[in-house]
């Protein structure tokens, strides 16, 4: 167990990093010419007003995100085993193999369904 002071250090570090980032943003915003006009403020579209609402996108990004959540949960379950594998012996290993195989079946199903073949 690390003493709580090490975790306070994370907050200190976070504060320092945020401060430097904010300072850069403020300096960048204050300095420099400020002459916005309509053409400049348009999104990149070769001078045309972009057509239509853009905040919709292909569903496969959603699928990738779902798969990531699932398999990251798998990894989250594997970490505790990885740390204490020696003490858990062969039965612990069998348990982890069982769990991994279960998710492997899901993985193979996704694979053969073609979810992971983006065209």
């Amino acid at each position: 167990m690390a003493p709580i002071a090490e975790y306070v250090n994370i907050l200190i570090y976070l504060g320092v990093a945020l401060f430097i980032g904010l300072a850069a943003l403020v300096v960048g915003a204050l300095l420099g010419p400020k002459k916005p006009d309509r053409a400049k403020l348009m999104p990149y579209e070769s001078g045309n007003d972009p057509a239509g609402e853009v905040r919709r996108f292909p569903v496969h990004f959603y699928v990738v995100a779902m798969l990531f959540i699932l398999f990251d949960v798998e990894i989250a379950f594997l970490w505790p085993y990885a740390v204490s594998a020696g003490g858990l012996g062969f039965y612990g290993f069998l348990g982890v193999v069982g769990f991994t195989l279960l998710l492997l079946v899901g993985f193979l199903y996704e694979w053969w369904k073609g979810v992971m073949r983006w065209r």
Partner: protein
Amino acid sequence: MSWPYPVDPYWMAALKALLVVVALLTAFAFMTLIERRLLARFQIRLGPNRVGPWGLFQPIADAIKSIFKEDLVVARADRVLFVLAPLLAVTFALLAFGAIPFGPPGSFFGYNPWVLNLDLGLLYLFAVGEMAIYGIFLAGWASGSKYSLLGSLRASAALFSYSLGLGAALLAPVLLVGSLNLNEIVLWQRENGWLILYAFPAFLLYSIAALAEAARTPFDLPEAEQELVGGYHTEYSSIKWALFQMAEYIHLITASALIPTLFLGGWTMPFLEVPYLWMLVKMALLLFLFIWIRATWFRLRYDQLLRFGWGFLFPAALVWFLATALVVALDLPRSLLLYLSLAAFLLLLGALLYSPKPVRKGGGA
């Protein structure tokens, strides 16, 4: 288990955090110069050499230019998120580096050569790494432009696909060391030999995934100039654009420090063990390798990128994890893993040397 490492006072932690942040920003600036010079060497030309001796003032000139450029917030942007996104990206990029040890306790003028020393060090690194994806996604969303949105979606999908491989690859070394603390991992390697010898496949998979996490060639689609007009930072200018570049390069520098820490003995060395020195040497070598890869390799297509991550990297890492788990669970001699690693290395080398030459389709020179 008691805590064998000394803890620094808070003011010292703050000072070191500031030092690390400023050092990373300087390193980023000069790495861009070194990268341009090295790429030039690879292409038999000179690279920037006009601003200052050997172009040394080029990064400073670039910084001044980007600060004094007009800082635009495009009309369709979500004003709050548009400003918040670069801040998030750079903050969480900076955070990871503090957890890396550069020497034994007390080797920083009597204090510790790290900012953070957590017992869940690796999990912290993953958490911070995945937080950085928020910045990228928000950037594309907040821009209100379809190029930015698509660029950010592709970038974030690629990033978390490969962060999965990153996690799976690291399970094997954790099995051997039995701790998530980075100091423990380095000290284990001092006693038992570098982890790359025990876990060569994990090292390879981790390095590839780390390269993709830093969005570097061959995995740098999110920022391919020829595609999607430059990805999620299409609408950014001035310092905000620079902050994204900074975040990305800091990810690369962090990767070049993490790979030695986890697999190449970190700051330890079998001979002439000097804190800082070897770590910096190893980092420099890896950065050189990354730039070399950038100079000589083609880019993957987006679907190839994801298919490689899901179809090869992740399963291969899990298989190696299970092999290592078997050795550790049955308490077989660890030297078994040395042989297994060597076999995997030779297999890969053989496959590379004896693979059939690709057939060139449709003529060409």
